[in-house]
């Protein structure tokens, strides 16, 4: 049995099933487009041009920024000439970062739910179980089939966002500001770790449910801690720095390892077959 050949076939087949279904690929494009490109670009553009102190409803953000400037947590803020500079810098470099995690979480959830629960729902899993493919190979193929598109989607969004952010910030700062260390750690360390954890969690959920919708809805609960992170950033209560990002990535990997153990324990060929009868 050629494992690589089988893994490649599984990855190709699963990715093709996503590209063939508009219900699957459309939300996977729309969410990054809105969260990663349109919304940040519009906010950055507005923040760079508006008289901020006259806008009542962002006073909480300005207060957070003042506090951050005085506390010296982001040293660059103190040397900036206007509120617009400070807020554009803060939005582009810090506040949007946790929002970006929604992209791999969403993509991984959809892809894994389709790959495992969807396969159960369409009654095609048994056909795979009747082949001599090892469960190890099956899971590697399935995890990669979700991880690769999820990472590509996150990285392409990151690149486009980076280009737009630099275009908007260059006239203000006179230099290319994006990305900073935070963003690089986020994209190359936290995003893959987060994707992997979400995929493995969804594999476990998919094994216990009967269909794609059920799996996707349960998997969607993972977004909740991310919203807490976004709120934390916006209020200035939780400023995520490079060390914290490294730790978050390590924690996500640790959780992934624990999940992997459960995945191998709970997903033998016989257990998978029985779960879909």
């Amino acid at each position, binding site marked *: *049995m*050629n*494992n690589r*050949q*089988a893994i*490649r*076939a*599984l990855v*190709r*087949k699963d990715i*093709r*099933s996503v590209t*063939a*279904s508009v219900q699957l690929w459309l939300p996977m494009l729309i969410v990054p487009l809105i969260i990663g490109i349109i919304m940040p670009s519009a906010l950055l553009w507005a923040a760079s041009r508006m008289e901020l102190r006259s806008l009542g409803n962002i006073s909480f953000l300005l207060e957070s920024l003042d506090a951050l400037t005085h506390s010296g947590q982001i040293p660059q803020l103190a040397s900036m000439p206007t509120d617009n500079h400070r807020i554009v810098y803060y939005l582009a470099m810090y506040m949007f970062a946790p929002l970006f995690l929604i992209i791999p979480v969403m993509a991984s959830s959809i892809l894994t739910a389709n790959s495992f629960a969807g396969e159960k729902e*369409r*009654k*095609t*899993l*048994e*056909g*795979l*179980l*009747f*082949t*001599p*493919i*090892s469960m190890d190979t099956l899971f590697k193929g399935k995890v990669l089939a979700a991880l690769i598109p999820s990472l590509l989607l996150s990285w392409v969004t990151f690149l486009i966002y980076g280009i737009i952010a630099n275009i908007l910030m260059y006239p203000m700062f006179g230099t290319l500001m994006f990305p900073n260390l935070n963003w690089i750690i986020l994209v190359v360390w936290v995003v893959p770790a987060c994707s992997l954890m979400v995929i493995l969690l969804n594999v476990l959920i998919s094994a216990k449910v009967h269909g794609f919708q059920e799996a996707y809805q349960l998997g969607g609960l993972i977004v909740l801690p991310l919203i807490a992170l976004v709120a934390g950033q916006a209020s200035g209560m939780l400023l995520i720095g490079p060390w914290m990002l490294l730790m978050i990535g390590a924690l996500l990997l640790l959780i992934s390892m624990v999940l992997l153990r459960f995945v191998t324990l709970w997903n033998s*060929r*016989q257990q998978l*077959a*029985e779960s879909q*009868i």
Partner: protein
Amino acid sequence: MIEATNISKQFKVHQALQDVSFTVKQGSVTGLIGPNGSGKTTLIRIMNGVLGASSGQVTINGLDTAREAEKVLAICGTLTEQSGLYENMSGRDNLTFFADVFGLKHAQKRIDELVTLFELQDYQHRKVGTYSTGMKKRLGLARVLLHRPSILFLDEPTNGLDPDGIQMVLRIIRQLNQEEKMTILVSSHVLSQLSAVCDRYIFLEKGRIVEEGTEQEIVSRYLSTPKLEVEADMPDGWHTATDYTPEIISAHQAMFQLTSREDIPLLLRQLTEHGQVYQARITGSDLESIYFAIREAHHHE
């Protein structure tokens, strides 16, 4: 050779199989017969090692199917009622995918052979979602033969097929068994089809084996009092031709209720002495009648 020993399977509160033991000889075609829900599909899944038995053991060529499922699956091909095909992919892409999963070399050549064998040339590039039931079944069969298995498990392979499709599947079962010496276990409830291909039969009822053997063995067990339908020209009438009492259907047709199989040659000899016998057949000796006789016999168990 397949050996099942004391297989039982419990799904929560439902006892699907109970103490099932049998042997399937290498190179034979065995029919697995039973009504829906009698445990045929569960048994096939357990024999592949895809499903675990609650107790008992199945070995295929000496391999314990529960412990060495991957080795067992490499020599077995299994077609269940859900053909396991991907509807958003073309027929050929499905075969290519499974060939890769099996790790086949020279896959395209093998796929060409199977596409020709199952007459799928004109549809191979169409999405499986647009296939008819018969086409899906043929493609499913092609899929399970990709890796040239030596043992084939076919669960209701003729379900949903038109008469041409049924004949094709039966012809291929015979061909695989005779030319490639494949051991085949085929489940069905269309018994007239099975009798054309099977050497032996296993009858399942409520998860238990209630009968097994060759068609002749089973017939002799259940038809101790045969009924013979005779078509003949008896110039002096049926009653004068024989000692046996006929139930006359028409001038040229009569039915004889005999007390044993040994009466058949005696009756025929008497009839041929008095007239021209064109045809004689035992009624109720076909597999379907036997099936109902067996079910009736075990109904109250």
